[in-house]
């Protein structure tokens, strides 16, 4: 485990790596560098693709009502429909089994297809695919609303505290401490249990009201450092107002921290929502949520495992993608971040170094 590295070789590599990195970022703006780094992060790009596809898939599946308008979904069932429980093709004694088939007919399966009820049916015959789609919509919506509210509040509180310092900072940070001491799950449960019937929008809204604390601390720290930098002094000497300094000079520099923590906030939010719904304090019946579905059907795992697998898989897919996107963003915004240098690049750099070719 403790194998000695050749120090001289490391020093040599450093020079080569720097040359490679410098060459890569030549003539690019900060935004372009970040974008380039993000695109190179395979996990993050893959996850972005997955989440985009998933969003379109999930939100277009069921009928959506926006005011008086009704947008029809592509799936032939809705959560309110009550088709008959089917038992064709199921094992002995089971009803409502899933019809999804992933084995092509060449290999002896029924061919790739969704079938009538791809994820099966629940106890009373409702199409489980439609329920899972509705649950995923709820979870994603909660996730985005919490991200938006928490992100906005956290940025505002953090930047005001960090920029003005003094008593403003003290008051705001003590207030943040108050909120931090109350665990999110406690506050969520207290409000959720008694106002759960107000719907998923309200749930997301008040969870967002308590989700900004970590972010505001980070933003404050960032503002405290940035406001002492020379470019802020320069702007102030040039006569810029506080508002201009905050929005034009400091905020663009802090945007990396904000974006990254909002992503992580969102992945935490989806787990919080499912946990609250599982406890019965989040989304409540007759509305549907992924956590609620798992909570309702956890006991049927041994007999009808699909009722348990599919909502869980959706939660994991969404949270995992968001986490990977967050990781990619963090790498992209972190100036110290180094990617792995391939052997070929290292070779090229060494050749350039030896032959004296300027970069």
């Amino acid at each position, binding site marked *: 485990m403790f194998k000695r590295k050749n120090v001289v070789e490391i020093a040599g590599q450093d020079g080569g790596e720097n040359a490679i990195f410098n060459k890569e970022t030549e003539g690019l703006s900060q935004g372009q560098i970040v974008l380039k780094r993000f695109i190179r992060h395979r996990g993050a790009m893959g996850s972005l693709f997955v989440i985009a596809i998933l969003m379109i898939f999930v939100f277009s599946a069921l009928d959506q009502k926006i005011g008086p308008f009704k947008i029809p979904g592509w799936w032939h069932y809705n959560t309110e429909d009550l088709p008959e429980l089917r038992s064709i093709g199921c094992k002995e004694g089971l009803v409502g089994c899933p019809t999804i088939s992933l084995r092509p007919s060449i290999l002896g399966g029924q061919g790739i297809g969704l079938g009538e009820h791809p994820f099966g049916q629940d106890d009373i015959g409702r199409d489980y695919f439609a329920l899972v789609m509705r649950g995923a919509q709820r979870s994603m919506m909660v996730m985005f609303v919490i991200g938006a509210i928490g992100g906005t509040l956290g940025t505002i509180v953090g930047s005001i505290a960090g920029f003005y310092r003094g008593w403003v900072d003290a008051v705001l940070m003590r207030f943040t*401490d108050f909120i931090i*001491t109350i*665990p999110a*799950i406690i506050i969520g449960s207290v409000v959720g249990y008694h106002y759960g019937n107000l719907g998923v929008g309200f749930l997301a809204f008040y969870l967002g009201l308590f989700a900004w604390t970590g972010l505001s601390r980070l933003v404050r720290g960032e503002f405290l450092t940035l406001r002492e930098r020379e470019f802020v002094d320069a702007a102030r000497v040039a006569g810029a107002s506080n508002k201009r300094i905050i929005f034009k000079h400091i905020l663009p520099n802090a945007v990396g921290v904000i974006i990254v923590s909002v992503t992580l906030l969102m992945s935490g939010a989806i787990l919080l929502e499912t*946990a609250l719904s599982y406890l019965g304090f989040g989304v409540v019946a007759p509305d549907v949520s992924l956590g609620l579905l*798992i909570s309702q059907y956890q006991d049927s795992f041994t007999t009808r495992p699909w009722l348990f697998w599919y909502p*869980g898989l959706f939660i994991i897919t969404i949270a*995992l993608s968001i986490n990977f996107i967050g990781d990619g963003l963090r790498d992209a915004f972190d100036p110290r971040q180094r990617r792995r240098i391939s052997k070929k690049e290292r070779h090229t750099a060494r050749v350039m170094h030896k032959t004296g070719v300027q970069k």
Partner: protein
Amino acid sequence: MVAFIFRRLGMLAVILFGSSFILYNMAAISGDPLEGLRTSTDPNAARQMAVLTNELKLDVPPPLRYFIWLRGILGLFVGHIDFGMTRDAQLVSSAIVTAVPTTVRLVFFATITAIILGITIGIVTALRQYSRFDYAMTFVAFLMFSLPIFWVAVLLKEFLAIQFNNFLANPQIPNGWIIGLSVANGVIWSAIISGDRKRVWQVFVGVALATGGLLSYLSITSWFAKPGLGPIVTFGLSIGIAYGVTQLSTGLKNQAALRSAQTMAVISLILYYPNQYLFDHYASGLLILGQLVTTFAIAAAVGLYFAKTDRAPTIRTAMIAGFLIGVITVVDRFMHTWNPYMSTDAVNFRPVPTTGQVNPLLEPGNFWFSSLDILVHMFLPTIALTLISFAGYIRYSRGTLLDVLNQDYIRTARAKGLTERTVIMRHAFRNTMIPLTTIMVVDFAGIIGGAIITERVFGWIGMGTLFNRAITTFDLNLLMAVFFITGSLTVLANLVADLLYSALDPRIRTGKG
């Protein structure tokens, strides 16, 4: 220092006051405790409402009622804390007293396991940055981040409890499993050990064969039905521990440390049967504690005997080795208890439970049975909580160690010719631990939130259960008591983290070892 602690404590009191005030009022206005009675047709409803109003002082508006509650809490300083009454006219404190140890037990073990596992894996991934192992562990960490704990819990119940119990009825491992596990283990180890292709293959084949052989042996001898190590295997493991601990703690070149660690292993072999006698006849928590103290005393003596000049590292090595060897000995004893425990009527050959915190049917009196019972019941919840929280430690310790390894003082340490072991273990690892301690302590408090769900899934009766009851029955005093405990733990954890931070001086002491 004292002034600092008092100032911080004062601040924490203010913070707790503020947040409890906010929560109390939010909880009070979010519902009506008399709601059920108001709509009730029971002729006694009015009287009951009056009694409840009087008992819980519901006629006082919430902001003022908060101060009545606070007066009870402030009794803490005169030695008589009063959490008030629950709705069914019981003392909140008596409910809390039984619940707190349960939750702390659950959270404590899970956090310790998560810390040890997470930091070990995190450090290995940092030392092997961009290796296959690193990528695999990064993925695993993100997967763990994304798992809902209640979902994992159901899976664990099915596969680690129900199916494992089925397996124990006839503990023959199927050949497919043996091959699969051997290959998987080989892949893991060959990914960790760096080197050229030949060495990777060597490690892979060696580890896979060793694993396969061991599993086949265990399967053929039905070891899982009647596990145990015996003196020989215990001694072999002890020697392994002696070498491992010495390598990490001082390096194998330190003869004094190596000798004293080996001596600890030999002593444990000599004392094997006397220990068994003690275990059989005088088993109690006190005995284990006494043995722990004795082990440390022996370790100190052995270390002093072997060390000529630099005593502290030698004694430290002997103590760590002695402690771990002691753990092995106790584990061995528990393994011997396994079969008799399984055969009791209460357990009836299905030892891994899916719910509950103790087996109520088990006859009390036998120390080993009841301890094993507690351990077995903690098995699944601990795994669930560990899985969820150790991913954070992997990511964090990896990131911190990578940061530290880029520092100038690491370059200096290498440049002055220290061995790689000394650079990693003394210069890098210790500096990595400083920010990690803060995370650990705060995490310990935060994981209590996770315990609420875990308790619910596994049917434990702890703080989480009380919390659920408090919310569904609108029991404000109970809710506030739960919050007061978790909230105080959180702020105290923050204080401890700060103190630890200043205690862990990052400067590296000079001296050999």
